[in-house]
């Protein structure tokens, strides 16, 4: 029978199948960070259990690490305790850790791919919902809770309930200035924050195939914002080229054997998806959010929507509440919205390509008066590469802050936060109330829009700079 890619990868990992029980799936790679792991290690200790496969586990510090003054002790005692706890746990249980100061430290979803640990056809989990990022390689990658983290540490498996499959096909070609971020924001606005619930989404079509690996990761990253279990993109030459030569990639004849296998993972001709969504890339333009969930977005050319225009009473109420929180008036052109802060970073848009794109736009220009721009590379290796290409200097010359790697203002667990009432244009993935700091207001944008907004001070696209 014709099968989808997600079904194939699932089948290859079934350790045990029994009537009336969820399938027990083998996990190829387990990524660990300081926030969702302490209670899991504690659970192991209490039960006298060990980590079954430390060699399939890797840890890094990202969620609450500071992005300046790395050598000073972490000022916040509770953050410090979490980081110290992770270090102790990794050393007690024999897990490889990339701590602050290490070249491979960074946001967990940037680190896995850059080391070549994320490969097609794998099952990848992490106690973090944006694990969906790794699906860009054709891996089945999903976020899990802390009890599941403990379960994977102890058994290298997870009992999993079956999922449904959804195809999101993006036909055509993206116009200049329109990016992967705009694609995924448009998908979420179309299907809603619950639209992907219970599904693994496969992104396909011409526009997806044309994307770089970095851009594919941006798309898969935000699958969770549509409620999906995971997002996937079929591995192709772009994928193989990206993986080849990385520290943990297969070598020589092994690489060829791996590629042979990876090619077999593509969704079969005639396989059926439980749901299908189609978008036309030619019609997309830069997209920005106006509300407090990632589904509340419009094209940058549009206006803040009028809650009265929503038929569904709960959507209307949600829009009213969001506008109040965001302090926005219906009908205001998005382009007139003024920001205090621009955040360029996160596992959505903190990779080298994102930094290159933004640097090109701010090169030779200045960040607008009264605006602070925070550039936080996704990993220390990204930072090193950006510096080697002179990008760090471009940001500094423009008046931006050029920080160390971490999650930073994506979730504001470290000192990088919005103050109450402050407004940001952010390349991260969540615009929830208070996500970037108590009372902070977030507009999700692409790196292109973030950079142009930093220069003009109001939500803008690069085209506005030449006008």
């Amino acid at each position, binding site marked *: 029978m014709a099968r989808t890619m997600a079904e194939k990868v699932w089948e290859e990992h079934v350790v045990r199948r029994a009537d009336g029980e969820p399938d*027990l799936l083998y996990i190829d790679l387990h990524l660990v960070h300081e926030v*969702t792991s302490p209670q899991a290690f504690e659970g192991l200790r209490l039960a006298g259990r060990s980590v079954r496969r430390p060699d399939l586990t890797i840890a890094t510090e990202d969620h609450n690490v500071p992005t300046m003054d790395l050598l000073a002790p972490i000022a916040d005692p509770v953050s410090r305790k979490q980081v110290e706890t992770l270090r102790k746990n990794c050393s007690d249980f024999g897990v490889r850790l990339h701590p602050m100061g290490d070249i491979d430290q960074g946001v967990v979803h940037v680190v896995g791919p850059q080391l070549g640990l994320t490969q097609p056809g794998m099952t990848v989990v992490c106690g973090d919902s944006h694990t969906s990022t790794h699906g860009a390689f054709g891996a089945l990658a999903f976020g899990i*809770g802390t009890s599941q983290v403990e379960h994977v540490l102890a058994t290298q498996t997870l*009992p999993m309930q079956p999922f449904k499959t959804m195809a999101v096909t993006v036909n055509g070609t993206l116009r200049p200035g329109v990016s992967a971020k705009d694609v995924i924001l448009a998908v979420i606005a179309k299907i809603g924050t619950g639209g992907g619930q219970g599904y693994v989404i496969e992104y396909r079509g011409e526009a997806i195939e044309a994307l770089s690996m970095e851009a594919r990761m941006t798309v898969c990253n935000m699958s969770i914002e549509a409620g999906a279990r995971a997002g996937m993109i079929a591995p192709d030459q772009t994928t193989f080229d990206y993986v080849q030569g990385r520290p943990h990639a297969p070598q020589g004849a*092994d690489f060829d054997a791996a590629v042979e296998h990876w090619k077999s993972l593509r969704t079969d001709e005639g396989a059926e998806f439980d749901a299908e969504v189609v978008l036309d890339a030619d019609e997309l333009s830069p997209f920005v959010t106006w509300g407090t969930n990632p589904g509340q977005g419009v094209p940058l050319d549009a206006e803040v929507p009028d809650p009265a225009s929503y038929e569904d009473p709960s959507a209307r109420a949600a829009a009213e509440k969001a506008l109040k929180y965001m302090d926005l008036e219906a009908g205001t052109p998005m382009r007139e919205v003024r920001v205090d802060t621009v955040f360029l970073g996160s596992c959505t848009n903190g990779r080298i390509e994102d930094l290159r794109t933004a640097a090109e736009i701010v090169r030779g220009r200045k960040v607008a008066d009264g605006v602070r721009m925070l550039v936080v590379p996704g990993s220390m290796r990204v930072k090193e590469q950006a510096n080697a290409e002179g990008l760090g200097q471009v940001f500094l010359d423009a008046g931006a802050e050029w920080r160390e790697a971490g999650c930073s203002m994506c979730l504001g667990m470290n000192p990088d936060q919005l103050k109450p009432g402050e407004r940001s244009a952010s390349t991260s993935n969540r615009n929830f109330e208070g996500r970037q700091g108590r009372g902070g207001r977030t507009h999700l944008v692409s790196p292109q829009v973030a950079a142009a907004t930093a220069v003009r001070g109001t939500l803008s696209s690069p085209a506005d700079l030449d006008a």
Partner: protein
Amino acid sequence: MEKFDVHTGRAVPLRASNVDTDQIIPAVYLKRVSRTGFEDGLFAEWRKTDPDFVLNRPEYEGATVLVAGPDFGTGSSREHAVWALQDHGFKTVLSSRFADIFRGNSLKGGLLTVLLPQEVIDRLWDAIEADPATEVTVDLVDREVRAPGVRESFELDDYTRWRLLEGLDDIALTLRHTDEIGEFETTRERWKPVTL
């Protein structure tokens, strides 16, 4: 894990959709390394800034059933959201739609999340608001929710139901199959990456 069979308690009506886990427990409360004590973070922002927020109202104090709007628990995978609800005293959450990861976390941790049609949720909201002393019964044995004027069955797969009724921890169950896991490991391709 505590067993769950039949629970009866007073309920809190949370009339909001898309309540994400950042609202259930904001990130600044995630820094603890222990498993308990998260109640102070539960809906911290709303409790602090909105005196009318349901959990600030004396009539709902001590309630153990949360009746929530659709798409409850979206966003971050933080299991702390489940712990915060449990530490506050909630035993069960009722909604017409839950985010997947939140649902998975809750059912693993013994917080019973019950899916009901929105129309039933609406009726429960009305009943609780009319009389905050209203008791709601969530019966996992018969897979049924009961309250004055409401008797509605709900679905939950047999396996999860059995685990919750017995209070069984998933890890112990999986460790019974260690041989099968070992056997599977011998079949993995040699080129699959290792971290060490």
